[in-house]
């Protein structure tokens, strides 16, 4: 494990007062906030600056960290000495109000037992809930799937030492799930204290971008490219969908933008969504003599002005 220099992460020096630490934090949080940042490593940087703030704006944690950090530099191999925080009084509040799952192993190793120790008087305290994002394919929402999720959870051995346990879960993704929904896995969050129950794990579902389909709730949309004569005269086509091939009838006189609805062919559920094919009429290029003649013939023989108001 590498030592993290929280002062360096926030771009401040060791004498910086708390209001200025918050100021530095907010400036970086604005830059790396995952909801808006376009930086490729935004999520990781946000995690670092969050935990730097959590430590440096808490006078107790900061004092303990400062003493520990005197002999370390950023990136240096690091193992916290046993009882490294002996002599420091922690209020214990700050462990409970952060989601440890969003912090690094370094932070977790240093501070995870702090709350535990100070909260001995809280019998049967339930463990924290955890949150993770899972990306699935659209097809998984149609058919269901199993996905591997790796979690790191602090555990305490009989001697009271904290270690990180890797936990690989195979999670069944139920058929019918949609983007933004959560799957709750009861008891898969952080372990409780004093014999309390473990928290729950919430998996937030996202679909991996699909070039062929876009999803709105339970409805699925695909673009159907058609030739002008197919749109004008109507045709019958066999098209692939996430739930198999379908026979599709394009009505005559169709225009670009027309939606063909296949009822119940969207994401399945007790009230399944619909699948829409949105027509896009593609013109053949006039790049041969024959094609040019045909366009000229249409221009001459078909009285049509697309800009004329009907």
């Amino acid at each position, binding site marked *: 494990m590498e030592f993290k220099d929280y002062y360096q992460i926030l771009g401040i020096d060791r004498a910086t007062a708390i209001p200025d630490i*918050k100021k530095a*934090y*907010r400036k970086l*949080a*604005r830059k790396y*906030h995952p*909801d808006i940042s*376009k930086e490729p490593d935004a999520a990781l940087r946000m995690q670092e600056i*969050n935990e730097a703030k959590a430590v440096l704006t808490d006078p107790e944690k900061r004092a303990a960290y400062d003493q520990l950090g005197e002999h370390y530099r950023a990136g240096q191999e690091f193992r916290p000495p046993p009882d490294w925080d002996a002599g420091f009084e922690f209020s214990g509040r700050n462990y*409970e*109000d*952060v*989601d440890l799952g969003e912090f690094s192993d370094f932070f977790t190793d240093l501070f995870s037992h702090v709350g535990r120790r100070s909260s001995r008087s809280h019998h049967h305290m*339930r463990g*924290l*809930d955890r*949150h993770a994002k899972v990306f699935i394919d659209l097809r998984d929402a149609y058919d269901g799937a*199993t996905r591997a999720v790796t979690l790191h959870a602090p555990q305490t051995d009989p001697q009271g030492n904290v270690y990180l*346990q*890797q*936990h*690989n*879960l*195979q*999670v*069944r993704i*139920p058929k*019918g*799930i949609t983007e*933004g*929904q*959560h*799957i*709750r*896995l*009861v008891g*898969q969050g952080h372990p409780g204290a004093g014999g309390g129950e473990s*928290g*729950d*794990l*919430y*998996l*937030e579902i996202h679909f991996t971008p699909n070039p062929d389909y*876009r999803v*709105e709730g339970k409805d699925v*949309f695909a*673009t159907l490219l058609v030739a002008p004569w197919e749109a004008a005269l109507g045709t019958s086509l066999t098209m692939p969908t996430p739930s198999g091939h379908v026979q599709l009838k394009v009505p005559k006189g169709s225009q670009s933008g027309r939606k063909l609805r296949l009822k119940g062919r969207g994401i399945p559920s007790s009230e399944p969504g619909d699948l829409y094919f949105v027509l896009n009429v593609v013109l053949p290029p006039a790049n041969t003599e024959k094609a040019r003649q045909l366009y000229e013939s249409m221009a001459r023989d078909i009285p049509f002005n697309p800009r004329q108001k009907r």
Partner: protein
Amino acid sequence: MVENNIVDGEILDEATLTLEEFAHACAVERQWVKERVESGMLGDGTHYVSQWRFTSYDLIRARRLRQMEYDFDAVPELAALVADLFEEIERLKGRLRAAGLPFH
């Protein structure tokens, strides 16, 4: 230690969260949730405590509110305004995507 087992979960929205479960999932006090529901920043506007049930959408929004309040010391109203704007951006991005236009 590595554990390998297949775990079944429940889809939130088919089984919604109670106030207590919801507060725990957001790592906030119940009072924090109540205040935001009562002031219309969260939930569907139902003010009857016995009927409060929370969905996936509420969970995403509440965690975003909490993050804004904690990260930027934002007052709840400002955090709610930012959450509203994020939701609007997501909606507009959806429309751009639907039109086949890039948004970055």
